[in-house]
């Protein structure tokens, strides 16, 4: 890798620190904005790995307190679950998460 900014923050969508810092420099200062432009947090894990990291990067670059940047709500489903579980009663994947 070229230098220390070319590593993945969002592992699912393969978005690097450099790309995230670029969009923050363009003025996008929320997790949602960064997500909509770079796709960071839209992959398989739905931001479970990178969401908090991106919040911290935004907080460090903009000087906003972390609590202000962090998402205040999470959408359903909070845990990974097969759609099948919504229509059927029975064993759930949730206990494995």
């Amino acid at each position, binding site marked *: 890798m070229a230098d220390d900014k070319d590593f993945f923050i969002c*592992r*699912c*969508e*393969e978005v690097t620190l450099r790309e995230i810092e670029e969009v923050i420099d363009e003025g996008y200062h929320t997790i949602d904005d960064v997500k909509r432009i770079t796709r960071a947090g839209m*992959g*398989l*894990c739905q931001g*479970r*790995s990178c969401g908090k990291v991106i919040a911290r990067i935004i907080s460090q670059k903009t000087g906003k307190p972390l609590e202000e940047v962090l998402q205040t709500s999470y959408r359903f489903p909070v845990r*990974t679950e097969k759609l*099948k579980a919504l229509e059927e009663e029975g064993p759930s994947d949730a206990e*494995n*998460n």
Partner: protein
Amino acid sequence: MQRIIEHPVLGPLPDVPMVKIIVDGEPMEAREGEMIAAALIATGKKYFRKTIKTHEPRGIYCGIGRCTDCVMTVNGIPNVRTCITPVEDGMVIETQMGYGVWKQEQ
């Protein structure tokens, strides 16, 4: 690679029956009840999938079913999180390229 036979806290590895799994067409043995990822690491498998954009190899990362880095195609179903899915006898496990392909109706 090998398993931890004598763990400082958990003690010696208990005896459990072995099951047969098929990894990329090759038959292998796994300990009954262990997770697919654990079985694969014990057999020395270096990567579980390749990413869709940069085609980089990925393996186990969080190990608790959150990061989805260890997903593979299991019994024809892509994107199965191998770190929280126990092995079953006769399971067919394949290295996944990108988002994978559905090979089975579920």
